[in-house]
């Protein structure tokens, strides 16, 4: 067990863990951040998406040892930010949610996309969300949610 210090949702924290432990398990089990979901455990579905130093990663594929000194953002940290509120309202208004299990990961992927491309085309949105699986919606209304967040988010993204 080693002590690993990193920034989580803009707060400095440290955890005691084996370096190989998955970031996903630290977030869900040790820190109680259950917006991060496990759908596949092998980086295929994106339900466990978080931002590591601003980049979208699957937390099931990130050993906690590699997080030392990094900044990790989860939906719990972003849901009260301007970015988070913009995308959350847009998803809710677009009917982007059905079972909701993929939704936190979709929100994280959308934020990662809009931060680098505030006005994405439909094809760019599709590529931006292509690492996140949804079995309920056919993605149509999720894509429309990202478009709406882009339209409404002048000055935010």
């Amino acid at each position, binding site marked *: 067990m080693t002590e690993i210090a990193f920034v989580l949702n803009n707060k400095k924290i440290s955890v005691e863990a084996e370096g190989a432990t998955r970031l996903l398990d630290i977030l869900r089990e040790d820190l109680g951040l259950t917006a991060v979901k496990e759908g596949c455990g092998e980086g295929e579905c994106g339900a466990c998406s978080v931002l590591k130093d601003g980049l979208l990663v699957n937390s099931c594929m990130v050993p906690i040892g590699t997080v030392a000194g990094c900044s990790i953002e989860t939906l719990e940290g972003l849901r009260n930010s301007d970015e988070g509120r913009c995308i959350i309202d847009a998803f809710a208004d*677009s009917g982007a*949610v059905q079972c909701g*299990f993929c939704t936190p990961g979709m929100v994280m992927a959308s934020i990662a996309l809009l931060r680098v491309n505030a006005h994405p085309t439909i094809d760019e949105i599709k590529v931006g969300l292509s690492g996140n*699986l949804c079995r309920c*919606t056919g993605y*149509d209304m999720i894509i429309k949610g990202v478009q709406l967040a882009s339209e409404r988010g002048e000055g935010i993204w």
Partner: protein
Amino acid sequence: MAEGKTFRNDGYAKVTGRATYADDISFAGTLHMVPVYADYVAAKNVVIDSSKAEALPGCIRVLTAKDVPGITNFGQIEQDYPMLITDTIRSWGDVLALTVAETREIALAAAALVEITADPIKPVLTMEEALSPYARTVPSYGDSNIVVHHKMRHGNPDPLFDECELIIEEDFTTQMIEQGYMEPESAICVPRSDGVIEIYGSMQHPFSTRRFTGALLGEPLSNIEVYTIAVGGGFGGKDDTAAIVCARAALGARILRRPVKMTYTREWSIRESYKRHPYKLHYKVGVTSEGLIKAVKTEMYADSGAYLSVTPWVTWRSTAQCCGPYAVDNVHADVYGVATNNLFTGAMRGFGSPQVNFATEQIIDMIAEKLKMHPLGVRRINMVKQGSTTVTGQVLDDHTVSMEEVMNNTVHEIGYRKKFEKCSLGKSDSDELYGIGLAISYRGASLGAEGMDFCSAIINGQYDGSILVETGIHENGQGSDSVMMMVLAEELGTNLKRIRYKRSSTSNIPDSGSTVATRGTIMGSSSIVLAAKQFKELLSKHLAERLKCTPEEVTFHGDKIWGLTYDQSLTWEEAMKELFLQRVTPYAFGTFQAPDVSWDETNGQGNAYFTYVYSCQAAEVSVNKKTGKIKLLNIVASHDIGKAINKAMLLGQIYGGITQGVGYALMEEVTSEEGRTTSLNFDKYKIPRTTDLPEMTGIVVENYDPHSLTGAKGIGEPALELIAPAIANAVHNATGIRCKSLPLTINPEDLA
């Protein structure tokens, strides 16, 4: 933006990540349970040695069939599914033991230490093998691998084939697929001090969960309370297996007297949970020179796998709808369920229809091609119309039969006629071949003659004017709670904000059956209408005096309760308070019984369903000549669902259903080697991603259904059941190649 108003009572909870699913819940002192599998596909004389596992520090117990106080084997129809194996292994998904430990890591480590030995048996892995007269009998009950045989005898097709201008005789096969809900099975069970076991589980049928748990524990249903929590999708797949995960965790909680959590990995979920039945279908169809289908003979075989689950019901729907939405006067059908040592198969959205539609909707296009007729013409001549008699002998005269209207909508929206003329049929100057195809279906709504069909609702008015409502319909993610709230708000003329959907518990709302079979909206909302009628009658009776009118004159609208004049009204706050002062409980309980249906199993005739949903979906594709890759360009879907209650969610269901159907058509297949599943996660089991999908357009047709108290039918399954044949027809029209097996693949060599 989707048209219409979006309402989801759980929308914000889910989009902010606050919604709690089973694995998100924890209680102090929770133990963790892990299943133990063996590498056998079929074996007997199982011996389990748990001593090394139990010696592991932190491992509390290894539970096996010997620890079960009730019965180990259970099922929805036949009690044949072993929740824990006693002696005989029939499938690679079978569970032999459960390790329980202080942490999940220790439970996993203990599972690896459980030693299992058995005498292997040669598994029966194909239906052909299973049907051979020398085959070993797989099921624990009965003496045959034919576990069900449904017959339809409607007219007499045999003498008619000779008179037919055209005979089409074809074979089709469909593959095994996985429901692919994003949340794997999970349950947390808590022993309560009053003796009740509480269950919070990722399952779609709380009452089935209670039955499986009661059987395993050997306890009455009243000892088990299953709560509804957020569920990450089901699509038919979270009944038996998901219920059994709950039952196993409950067994641990009962024996060890502590909360027990059991959360599945994706690999365990795909290894153990039931799948969509693979089918082999044979059709012989006799057609006149005018394109009229005179006679059909069909035989279908469905691989039921090692356990029965709901195979008799799935194959029944295939029987009742064996000719698609066509009124054929002479049909003989024989539909068999066949036991093998493969993974067991059961309910999945579509339930015996997608397989049939894949065959029938291609046969229609084949007839058109052979007779040089238009595919729309062949459909129009044969499709069910107002007053038609179906292949089950049911006369469709008591609801609007909108098959043609629905087909016309899709044809018009996508521009089918013009585009059909431009199809490549294997010839193109560029590398891309273009094709358009469509398919139509009708789908019996709700259970039909498959089961007892009724549903209850409770409306519970509160002292302060707020209202609690619940029904026996389960929220799996489809948005049923929101629909129920919207229907109640409409019935009571109230603001939606006044209404809260109560988190249901099996100890409160009566068993209303499973939320399957496209029955949630039709059954649940009708039960709300009945309960609301009683609720309004009660309020009218006790408020009339204050409103200075008779009870019959009281009305409900504008979020108020009214007498005859504008100055006579009560707010809901005032009205509820008035009832309490009169010592009257503002409470109503309503049960909606589905209209009668009938069925004669000897000849497959009867009024199979009380109403039908009519659908037409069309797809445009391009196929690359060099790679054979099929790319979707556009999809249009039209469905007559009676009445749209929550239109944005309805469209979401349509697009989601189409997308699952796209997976069925083009990429999904549960693969195995010698009975061992090899596609255990999404790296090998591919489901559609954003980049696999084209623009989709949904058209909602609303012919009010007189059998539903809201006029609404349903959309869950119709959305999925017909896009695969539409795509297959489009691929044919692009390439000239007819694909008779799923998933569709084009070998580029065949295009040269």
